[in-house]
């Protein structure tokens, strides 16, 4: 298994380089340089001309790419054009907030979603099932900004609607993200469990007169959780890349907002930094999912993790 993990980790390096390269090329082609964007309405042509030379904005992309890669290998991810601060410090400040929000929302969604899914599967087609699945469907379908604005309007004055100054500020945004995540997890748990409950070996166990539902549930549950685990890891990954809409609505200075601001401002160094970082996070998340898979399912472990 260690070999498997090592192989997977090594593969990420060319993936990261490839992504950096792609972004570089795309941003060279797309119109709009950072200076023009920064000056906006108050554009001064001669200033732009002068500063473009100073900032090496007119150098060919492969020259800039080469320098960028060289600096990155030394841990220097450049300085944001717009915010004049080191990219690594900007990400280091923004990421913990997104991390906290993501983990809270994820854990919340698992605590609520998995039991809800189990209950729905066990009491299939009952009122409980329909109720839970209805709520789950809403969570999955209603867009984040609608849920967010609704919660803001309802709880304004009772819970903080903006900023990130205390644990109380986490509640509403985590609810927004958590509802969506919980909905997905609940539906997946339910369908996965239902599928396993139909399997032959469960029927056999029942036929043999094996102990009542809870025990069978213990058998069935273990086997049905595989896709759920995968989904949990993927959810954490996607939450960690930053829920832009939620962060904007609730004024949370996380990495989602940082990335979008970088895109809008053509802030190349910052954009490169956030994209690399986010890619690394997603790859890590998927890697964790794969490892957990190995751990949980002996068949995969025995076959050497293929």
């Amino acid at each position, binding site marked *: 298994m260690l070999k498997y993990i090592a192989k997977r980790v090594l593969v990420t390096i060319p993936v990261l380089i490839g992504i950096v390269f792609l972004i570089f090329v795309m941003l060279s082609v*797309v119109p*709009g340089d950072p200076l023009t964007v920064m*000056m906006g309405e108050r554009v001064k042509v001669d200033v732009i001309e002068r500063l473009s030379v100073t900032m090496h904005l007119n150098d060919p992309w492969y020259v800039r790419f080469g320098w960028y890669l060289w600096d990155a290998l030394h841990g220097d991810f450049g300085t944001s054009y717009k915010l*004049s601060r080191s990219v690594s*410090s900007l990400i280091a400040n923004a990421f913990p907030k997104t991390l906290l929000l993501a*983990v809270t929302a994820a854990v919340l969604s698992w605590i609520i979603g998995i039991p809800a899914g189990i209950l729905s599967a066990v009491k299939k087609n009952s009122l409980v099932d329909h109720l839970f699945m209805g709520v789950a469907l809403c969570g999955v379908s209603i867009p984040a900004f609608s849920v967010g604005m609704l919660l803001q309007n309802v709880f304004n004055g009772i819970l903080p609607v903006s*900023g990130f100054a205390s644990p109380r500020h986490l509640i509403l945004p985590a609810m927004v993200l958590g509802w969506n995540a919980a909905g997905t997890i609940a539906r997946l748990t339910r369908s996965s469990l239902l599928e396993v409950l139909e399997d032959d070996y469960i029927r056999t166990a029942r036929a043999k007169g094996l102990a009542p539902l809870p025990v069978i549930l213990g058998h069935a549950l273990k086997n049905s959780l595989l896709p759920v685990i995968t989904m949990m890891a993927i959810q954490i990954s996607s939450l960690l890349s930053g829920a832009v809409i939620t962060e904007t609505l609730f*004024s949370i200075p996380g990495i989602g*907002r940082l990335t979008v601001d970088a895109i809008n401002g053509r802030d190349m160094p910052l954009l490169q930094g956030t994209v690399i970082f986010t890619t690394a996070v997603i790859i890590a998340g998927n890697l964790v999912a794969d490892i957990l898979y190995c751990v949980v399912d002996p068949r995969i472990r025995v076959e050497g993790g293929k």
Partner: protein
Amino acid sequence: MKKYLSFFLAGVMAAAMLGGCGSAFDDGSSPTSAAGDSSAAQTQAAGQGETAQAPAGNTVQQGDNMIHIPSKNEFPTVDCQKNTEFYVVPLNIYDRLVECEMVDGVATIVPSLASTWDISDDGLVYTFHLRDDVTFHNGIKFTADDVVYTIERMMDPATAAMNTDFFSMIKGANAMLEGEADGVEGVKALDDYTVEITLEVPFGPFLANLATPSCSIYSREATEAAGDQFGIDPAVTVGTGPFKMADWVLNDRITLVRYDDYFKGPAKADGLQIIQVPDENTQKLMYENGELDVVDLSSSNSQLPYFMGNDAYKDNLVTGPEAGQYFYAFNQDMKPMDDVRVRKAISMAIDRQTILDQMYNGAGHVVNSMLPDGILGSYDAQEIPYDPEGARALLAEAGYGDGCELEIWQMTDNPDALAINQVVQSMLNEVGFKVSIKQIDEAAYYAERKEGRIGMTRAVWWGDFNDPDNFLYTFFTQRNTKARSINHKNTDVYQWLEDARAMIDEDERMALYQKIDTTMVQEEAAVFPLFQMDHIVVVQDWVKGFEVPWNGWTDTSYYKVSIER
């Protein structure tokens, strides 16, 4: 067993992360000022022996004596030599030699760091007599040398300043910018409190120009010591203004506290806190629960109907005219706008008064010139008529009797622009145009516009300083007309704009500007002025002394504002 172990471990990891992430909260105990030197920021701000302290933690404490205002975008830096748009912090932590203020309803240049000044008869030499009782936030006295430093810093190529055009008319300034000189020849400290500035050629708007935030005066000693952290690290960013920087949590909030030794007397409020709230609806909610004291509705204008339509807020609205206007710019390098008849037809087909009344609650007035009311040099321009039949006739005369295809360009994600463009589209289609609206993203829009390549577009311009030069030079010189995608070809106007800058006789100068305006707007219809809007701000009952500034900007000084609960 192993499976349960792994789940247990995962749970423990999650708990550990949560615990560790407690520090992610901006509770003020570990301010994340990006320089990383958080402790220095706190001690520096707490020094100087003044009484105003940053509030404990970054939570808004309702009932405190701080003014809380929102901002939708983070500021790149508060060094106003390097930023062209975000001036609320510079207006509160720095001063300029002179200021522009409303005195008896007229925008007037008033003394600030300079108490009096003399101008030579040829308009070339300005001698400023400076106050001797001004100190910077770190206690250093302000002297004439700081003025010299400020100007030279702006023109120093190493600074990479974006606002060099505010000092470039000074003799020797461009030479320094080009690297041909080590200093600016035209600025000299005659003694500690007298500074003499000599211009290359006379420049009528020079004084008005010095009142803009980009001309804020810096301390040589402190700014040099701060290096590239000036404007970024609160601990080293000092000015002479009524407030000083205490803390800056990036993308979250900036906190300014009162500077008790301010030369005009200490401000009434304890401080000013600018909170990043990118969503306008969230700003409204925070206003309603008391977390925000002042919300600028002209900037967060999706909330305008809510506040204007609600009687409960009638007494909370503060209005003032904006020294600027909305207009449509035509691109004479693109068909069909290369034909003046088509441009005039467009102008005649649009019913501006109805748009103003229906879409903007009538909060403003229609204008017919590029010189808005309240600006030096504004005059009663001839009304551009609303005449759809006349428009149709002109269109036919220009050869487009069968229909005329026209593109209106705008930025994506701009619902205001879209709303008015759609109305204009339907008005134009009535007289025989076939209008399509093209949306491109912000960066592309500015990039294309700079190259002179965008189509008809709604634009807005608010004055930097109180002078017609700022309104006309910006759009109609040879270089700028391309950068604004107007592309007019009138070489006389190019020349007149340069001539006017050097004129000494004010009446003659104003007359020339009016001629330029009449030529561009009335005769050539290079642009189509729409309206001058009222700037509307909603303030809480406990906020006293708030007025919209002379230019109708969102960014303003809060020196005279107090909180009285």
